[in-house]
């Protein structure tokens, strides 16, 4: 049984939950995997640290909570400081190099997700850049499945922008 625990973290408003949802949806509906998305329902507000947890497996998932993520993508300094201790020692860390500075002795890949999104015209799609980057660097979920999840989830007039952001992140990831 292969199981992967993934944690995406940033600040409220960055679309962290949406990124986690798309990862889970892509895996469960278009990637032939089992996936569970959990999120913390607390009094978090826009701007404070938040996270979306996705468990992926090739068999049905019982206990759904991510406790020891082996892959983590962080998009804010506060989130990095809050959640990094939960990453397993040989885990892979992905980070938005525009917003996060850290020391992680293990496998780590940075991508300037926010400035790439800015160049595409809207900062709000930095989460899609990170999602593409994650797909390329980890191979967790194939890009076609993620693109299909994007197409079937985001509002029609934003599909193209979201896909461009995803592809930009993916391209960066293949070169990382």
């Amino acid at each position, binding site marked *: 049984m292969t199981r992967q625990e993934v944690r995406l973290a940033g600040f409220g408003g960055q679309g962290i939950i949406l990124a986690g949802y798309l990862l889970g949806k892509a895996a469960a509906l278009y990637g032939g995997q089992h996936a569970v998305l959990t999120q913390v329902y607390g009094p978090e507000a826009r701007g404070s640290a938040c996270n979306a947890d996705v468990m992926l497996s090739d068999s049905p998932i*019982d206990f759904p909570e991510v406790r020891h993520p082996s892959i983590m993508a962080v998009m804010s300094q506060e989130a990095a400081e809050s959640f990094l201790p939960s990453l397993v020692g040989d885990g892979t860390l992905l980070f938005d190099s525009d917003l996060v500075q850290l020391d992680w002795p293990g496998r780590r890949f940075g991508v300037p997700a926010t400035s790439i999104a800015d160049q595409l015209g809207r900062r709000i799609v930095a989460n899609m850049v990170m999602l593409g980057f994650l797909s390329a660097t980890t191979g967790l979920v194939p890009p076609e499945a993620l693109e299909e999840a994007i197409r079937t989830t985001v509002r029609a007039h934003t599909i193209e922008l979201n896909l461009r952001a995803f592809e930009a992140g993916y391209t960066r990831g293949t070169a990382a």
Partner: protein
Amino acid sequence: MTVRQAHQERVRTGDHFINGDVACAEGALAAGCGLFAGYPITPSTEIAEHLARRLPEVGGTFVQMEDELGSMAAVLGASWAGARAMTATSGPGFSLMQENIGWGVLTETPCVVVDVQRPGPSTGLPTQTSQSDVMQAKWGSHGDYEPVAYAPASPQEMFDLTVLAFNTADRLRIPVFIMADEAVGHITERVRIPAAEALPSSSRPRPTDAPGNGFLPFKAGPGLVPPMAHAGEGYHIHITGLTHTERGYPTNSAEVHDRLVRRLSDKVLRRADELTLVERVWLDDAQVAVVAYGGTARSARQAVRIARERGVRAGLLRLITLWPFPGAAIAQLGLQTRLVVAESNLGQVAREAERYTAGQVYRVTHAGGHLLPPEPILEAILERA
């Protein structure tokens, strides 16, 4: 009156990646729910939120009520108007609904009440999980009655059991409870919605005679469930929360009361075998059996799986129906195995299970606040093996 036109499909056949609350809402739509009346409360809010958008699209009615007393009353009224009707809440709201739930029991009004449980007493921990309303589902309203309550363990079951709840409610003319928990309401997983024609469906018993003076609205046949006439159909009937005769009129007779309350209980208890659903996992050769339900059953299944990997003959009895209590399944299991009950409360099902077995029932309990993890359940299995 405005007649709403349906412009979206009721049954969203296909695979979806949705949370348990949304799956419950889709289950209600697929079952033909015509009215949702509720007062949003975490962790059930997404049910109301989703139905507020979806019900009008399919010609149904969504009402945000002033409180849970009104919510329950509106649901009962809609049911007498002929609609399938539902509300959703959490512990604090479930408390407020109890008086009108009793009215629904005595007037034999089919409806579905969803309780996405969070830790109590009182407002407790609003955003966290719990299973501490299990006994409230049984005893919450005053008087003798036998409820039917289901405990979904996944978003898929939030859909499936909501459909089943509407069918059970109509078939028996009772309020039926979905006793979900925050963990199941808020996790997002794949949910497969079948084709509309593949969905199970059963309906209320209805009068066969045309309206006239001879109709007795609370006279039941051998099945103990009287046919239900709806408002506006011409049957001039009286519906009351007072003890009533078969004609529906109040009475002070102790004999009528005893006969009525026994029938209301018996119509459920006589069907206990078909109503009590359980899932048996690796029980055939089990030395230790974990009894669990809802979100906690997922942790229990993982604990049992790990125990098996370590060579311990462990199994899981997952309760899908909580009421009527699956006592027969527990009694049978108690003869051959040592029992461990794992639940997110301080022993509500464990105590009930003890009534059905001579042996000791080992408890793994937590008052709620987080999903009970597999480790303490595994520890209990290993200790008892």
